[in-house]
């Protein structure tokens, strides 16, 4: 089994999990508002708003860093990478509200499984880091063994 096979399975699994969670989680009794409250006594709406604000800040920072990286890459390699990364940034900016809802399903499910939020988000970051790493290895031609 090559790394790209694992990466494709991880990607499909995350996609299916997010799709099912965003459509059926509330029907099955573990909807996001219940799950998202880690600290009892804090207002649900307030906490949700604060978390979304945080995600938005992180997403904006990531997009800014992407544009800076694109500028550097274009300085080194030419205009091709700049146009490519700006197009990707445009897509990401357009879909940020959808992506926020979609992307948070996996850590929310892990929290519903009983993991502490920090561990769940850590697992999620490692999961996606491995996914991206495997895809990059595959793109660079080093994915097989």
């Amino acid at each position, binding site marked *: 089994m090559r790394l790209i*096979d694992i990466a494709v399975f991880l990607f499909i*699994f995350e*996609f*299916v*999990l997010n799709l099912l969670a965003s459509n059926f989680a509330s029907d099955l009794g*573990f909807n996001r508002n219940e799950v998202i409250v880690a600290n009892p006594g804090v207002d649900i709406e307030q906490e949700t708003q604060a978390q979304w604000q945080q995600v938005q800040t992180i997403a904006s920072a990531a997009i800014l860093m992407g544009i800076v990286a694109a500028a550097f890459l274009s300085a080194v390699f030419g205009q091709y990478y700049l146009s490519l990364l700006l197009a990707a940034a445009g897509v990401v900016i357009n879909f940020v509200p959808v992506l926020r809802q979609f992307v948070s399903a996996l850590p929310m499910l892990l929290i519903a499984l009983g993991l502490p939020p920090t561990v769940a988000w850590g697992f999620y970051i490692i999961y996606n880091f491995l996914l991206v790493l495997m895809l990059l290895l595959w793109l660079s031609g080093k994915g097989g063994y």
Partner: protein
Amino acid sequence: MSGWDLLVQGKWFDAALYPYTSILGSEIFYTILLAAILGVIYIKTRSLEMVSAALILGGVVLIPLVRPDVRVYFFVGIAAGIAYALYALLWRR
């Protein structure tokens, strides 16, 4: 409510399962049941695709029978089944 009461009320399926669910708890029993079904299907077919299909169907059937806070495990199982089915369909050579 005892197994006899369930039988009198005509809930034959629940009455038949009562000895197991009362001792083990419904969650553990249904988890063992699902695992046994998947194991038997794998032994007979040696095919992970059939196992993933059984995982989807078994999860969908068993989700209403378990406690709400345990449903998330079956939910992840269904997601894994669908993911493997799609993976086998789209990617595996």
